[in-house]
């Protein structure tokens, strides 16, 4: 067996010069310190994305977009297709876990201030992928064309439509018309399986290229340590193999979740039916949805909901460009304000999500 692998490797090496790549990776080191665990969440996010791509392609073999076929095709996948239930359930769970892993990854980078020069673009591409991940979630949610998805999309696109000036065109763009119809399903299907994956792949490529080019970020206190005291491990094979170990554990987790909590289907969407009671968006939109409920009807001359959307928009924009306005960290100084803001944001998200969940 070993000989076969060696021959295959030699065959590829002769043509692709793999030795150079292995040498390059072998020279790359990952810092080892008390917060090294957070380095793995980037890889975990990547793993879930790969799972999404694979299961998504498998679902595409049977899924039929269209208001008359979508629900029935999912029903068919869940009941007739061999392991269809497993593929769909894994797709659903991996989507949620991808967002969770990406959010953890983003906050770990934020608190480690790993976005500081020269990694500003790595941060921006990462944030773009997180937004795209949410876009994947929103567009994919409607595809089963069930009652819950229909009304959640209606509410979600209504909220987007409340943004002044650009809101209405965005809503029309999302819905493919003034209402949530079959046109919305076709459109969001296109976004979900073609547009978003295309953009995501490009951004992911840039993100990975930047990481490989710039190496793994060291914590700020590392910079002041003498080289001998800087503990590291080789990126290849040590870090890669540890990543692989975590991926295997995540695969186990996915299998357990998919079997014990399979994806549900509910009732087929009916545009003339009444919205199901207690309709809520996906958990990662819940904190925003819940926050908007606390805004008064009007604040001065502006509608409360519009103000809330604008505030969230501004907060996301500021978050996206944090490497460019956090000058203190860029100068190599400790910026505790950034840490406090981060803690506040996490507390805010957790509390509002819980309130939204129990409401």
């Amino acid at each position, binding site marked *: 067996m070993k000989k076969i692998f060696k021959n295959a490797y030699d065959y590829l090496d002769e043509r692709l010069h793999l030795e150079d790549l292995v040498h390059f990776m072998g020279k790359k080191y990952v810092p080892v310190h008390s917060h090294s665990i957070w380095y793995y969440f980037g890889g975990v996010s990547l793993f879930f994305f790969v799972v999404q791509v694979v299961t998504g392609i498998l679902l595409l073999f049977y899924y039929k977009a269209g208001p008359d076929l979508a629900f029935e095709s999912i*029903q068919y996948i*869940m*009941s007739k297709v061999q392991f269809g*239930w*497993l593929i769909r359930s894994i797709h659903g769970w991996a989507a949620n876990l991808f967002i969770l892993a990406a959010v953890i990854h983003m906050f770990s980078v934020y608190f480690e201030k790993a976005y500081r020069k020269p990694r500003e673009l790595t941060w921006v591409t990462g944030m773009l992928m997180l937004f795209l991940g949410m876009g994947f979630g929103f567009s994919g949610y409607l595809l089963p064309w069930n009652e819950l998805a229909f009304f959640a999309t209606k509410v979600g696109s209504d909220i987007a439509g409340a943004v002044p000036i650009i809101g209405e065109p965005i809503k029309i763009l999302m819905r493919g018309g003034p209402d949530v119809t079959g046109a919305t399903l076709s459109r969001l299907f296109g976004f979900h399986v073609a547009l978003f994956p295309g953009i995501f792949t490009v951004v992911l490529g840039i993100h990975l290229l930047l990481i490989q080019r710039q190496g793994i970020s060291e914590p700020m206190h590392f910079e002041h340590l003498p080289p001998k005291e800087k503990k590291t*491990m*080789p990126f290849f*094979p*040590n870090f890669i*193999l*540890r990543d*692989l*170990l975590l991926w*295997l*554990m995540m*695969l*186990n987790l996915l*299998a*357990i979740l998919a*079997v014990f*909590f*399979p994806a*549900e*289907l509910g009732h087929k969407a009916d545009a003339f039916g009444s919205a199901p009671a207690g309709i809520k968006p996906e958990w990662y939109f819940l904190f925003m949805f819940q926050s908007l409920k606390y805004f008064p009807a009007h604040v001065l001359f502006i509608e409360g909901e519009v103000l809330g959307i604008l505030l969230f928009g501004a907060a996301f924009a500021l978050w996206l460009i944090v490497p460019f306005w956090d000058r203190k960290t860029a100068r190599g100084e400790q910026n505790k304000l950034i840490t406090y803001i981060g803690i506040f944001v996490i507390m805010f998200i957790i509390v509002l999500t819980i309130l939204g969940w129990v409401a």
Partner: protein
Amino acid sequence: MKNIIFLTCTFLVLTTSFVLNGKTPESSDQCFICHEQLGGVADQFKKDVHFQKGISCAGCHGGDSKSDDMEKAMSKSVGFLGIPKGDDISLRCANCHAKKEMMQKYGSHLPTNQLELLKASVHGKLSTNGKEKIVQCITCHNAHGIVSVKNPASPVYPLNVPNTCGKCHSNAKFMQTYNPSLAVDQVAKYRTSVHGMLNAKGDPKPAECASCHGSHGIRATKDTKSQVYALNIPETCSKCHSDALYMSGYKIPTDQYAKFAKSVHGKALLEKHDASAPACNSCHGNHGATPPGVESISKVCGTCHALNADLFSSSPHKQAFDKEKLPECETCHNNHEIMPATKAMLGVDKDAVCSKCHTETKSTKGYLVAKQMRSYIDSLETSEELALKLINDAEQKGMEISETKFKLRDAHQAKLEARTMVHSFSEQKFKDVVVGKGLSVTSASIVEAKEAVDNYFFRRYGLLVSVLIISLLSFALYLYIKQIEKKQAESRS
């Protein structure tokens, strides 16, 4: 002698005083005095209840009835109104009849809401010429010869009501002017009914038009407030038919309403408010109300239960029932107290209706068929229950089984079909429905539901195996990492 003269004088004074100032307006009503000489309406008015109560012509026509100068008496300056026309007629009546104190003044205890009711009625809302409503008070009560409702001469006396209503309602030409689709044969039908025949014989107690439709407040039959709106009919009929005292002379039971209320029809109509459910008139007719005879019962029931009636007519029971002069549907289902047709009615148990005629020793063939039919339906129910239990089990385990659940509806449909097919009293036809349509579906559903439950456990075992394999792989990888790192540490040292 002195006393006799005194009494005679007193009598003469009182008589003169009564003649001059008495209630009868004849003596002082100048309108009446003149019009009496002309004849016509004054003659009619003499018999009028109003005339007898001392109400003069001016009561309705205005003017000064005490003046013998015609021009002065009929001058507008003294309030002469002339002949009331259109809606003014009813308003003129209501001038007194809507005022309690005015009615009491004349010693009347009549209600005072007649105009209010008339305005809300179908007669008070519709108009043919757009100027006046179809019916005014005088349309039914007359104008100058109005007498009490209890007076047999009154057009609204019970014996006269059908003809009074029929004046318009039997007049096709008139009815066409405002409702061409309304039948005009009500009076003709009524005369064929038990009510109508008794009425024609001079019995004022049986129902006439106003008994069911009301008098002043008559509403369209589709109006939910109408006494003859589908949901209100049983109560309307029961006003007389549940009154044992009122019905005592007619020797018919008075428990029909109580029985009907408990029946499947009564519950649908009175509890579920299903206006399409049968009320009394659905079986007995409305204007031509009469109890259906033995021969016509299946036709009456068959107007709704058409398939059942057809199957029964071509079944061997038809001849047997005719021979025994048994009322067809009623023999098994009762008449007013028709209960939901459950499987308990079928078979040879004590409660089964088949066992009324078929026993192990009498009509044995029917006994065996009934027994077999019951066993088919029992099997279908047991099989359906099992299928449902397994489907619920699979659903609770999170399995997608909606298609099977949907398919199982056909078993319920087969049960409903069997309820109809039982009227063929053919074992083979019944079997074709219960076994061919019902049991085949339940059997397939049971197989699919079992597969789903098995699949659930397969998933669990599959998960266990895959988790074990992945865990072993992870452990091997962990050991490999440790081995590499050990080698790296050794090489560094």
